């Protein structure tokens, strides 16, 4: 028997050895997805950001002030549109770090935003650990909106609402840039 014939029979065997799977299996597995898949932790991470960046006490103080502002925003009941606050935070961090670390300032401001949204219960994804801080078009955070579109915060902290297909293209661009 030829090799091609065996391969054809193996294809038939593949078709013959499939069987229905319990419809509940997927749900049972999904129920076991942990609340947090990433090592990011709210609160403690805020301290880690300060340690990670090895920034001055002044900058650390600025980061803490921004965190407090974010919490004030949260408890004040205003919804996610804290773009102005984010920009203010950015300028504050930028001022404290100086121009050299301005991009890092954007990333850490985005990370604060991530923690805020995460604590709000949004399914938010943070890319700041792997994104190029100098790439103004890099996606730093994303989260899904109720209408199925995605809100995206870029490297320069501008925000855009995009469709899922556009998000995939943005992520593909990021991966290409990273591979260079």
């Amino acid at each position, binding site marked *: 028997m030829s090799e091609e014939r065996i391969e054809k029979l193996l294809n038939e065997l593949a078709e013959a050895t499939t*069987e229905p799977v319990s419809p509940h*299996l997927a749900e049972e597995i999904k129920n*076991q997805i942990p609340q947090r*898949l990433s090592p990011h932790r709210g609160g403690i991470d805020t301290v880690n950001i300060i340690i990670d960046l090895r920034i001055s006490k002044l900058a650390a103080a600025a980061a803490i002030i921004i965190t407090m502002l974010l919490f004030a925003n949260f408890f004040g009941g205003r919804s996610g549109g804290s773009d102005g606050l984010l920009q203010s935070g950015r300028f504050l961090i930028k001022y404290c770090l100086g121009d050299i670390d301005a991009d890092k300032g954007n990333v850490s401001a985005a990370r604060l935003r991530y923690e805020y949204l995460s604590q709000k219960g949004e399914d938010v994804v943070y890319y700041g650990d792997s994104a190029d801080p100098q790439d103004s078009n890099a996606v730093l955070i994303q989260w899904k909106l109720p209408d199925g579109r995605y809100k995206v915060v870029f490297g320069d902290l501008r925000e855009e609402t995009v469709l899922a297909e556009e998000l995939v293209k943005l992520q593909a661009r990021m991966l290409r840039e990273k591979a260079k």
Partner: protein
Amino acid sequence: MEYSEQMSNSLAARLRAGSRAAAAELVDIYYRQIYIFMRRLGHDSQTSEDLTQESFISAWQHISQLRSGRTLNGWMYQIAANVSRLYRRRHKGDEAVSIDGMDLPVGGESGSDKPANSEQVVRLKNAVAELPVKLRQAVVLHYLQHLTIAEAAETVGVRKGTLKSRLNRALGTLRSQIDS
């Protein structure tokens, strides 16, 4: 479900970033495949369900190993293959190592010239079940689960050349079994 490379890379990036929605998407894409993979590795249906769940739980714990450049298929199947191997180690002798447990329709669903083929398929199934573990795993991954050579090699942790050589040896053994 056919997932383009771009979609797969996007899913991997979201998983690395800790998205729960991406984790649920991973379940939807892979739970059937992994269950059938477990069945084809010789586990009974209840054990296969348990091991499928265990594979995903292990996947949540090993997301950090899903580095850029690794295929989602290779990563997921490697975890599943490890879960199966650990189970066998824990329950040595408890369970038959074969794919006999799967219901294989003889002369069933496919056409008038199929009875002869089906007979050969049954013989092939028995021959696959009798292959040494490494060769059987290579055949199951490449011919039955339809992984590429590169993905199958990544799954079992060998070079592509080694996997090709295992497949050649397996095909040779299967051919002689069917011809005899």
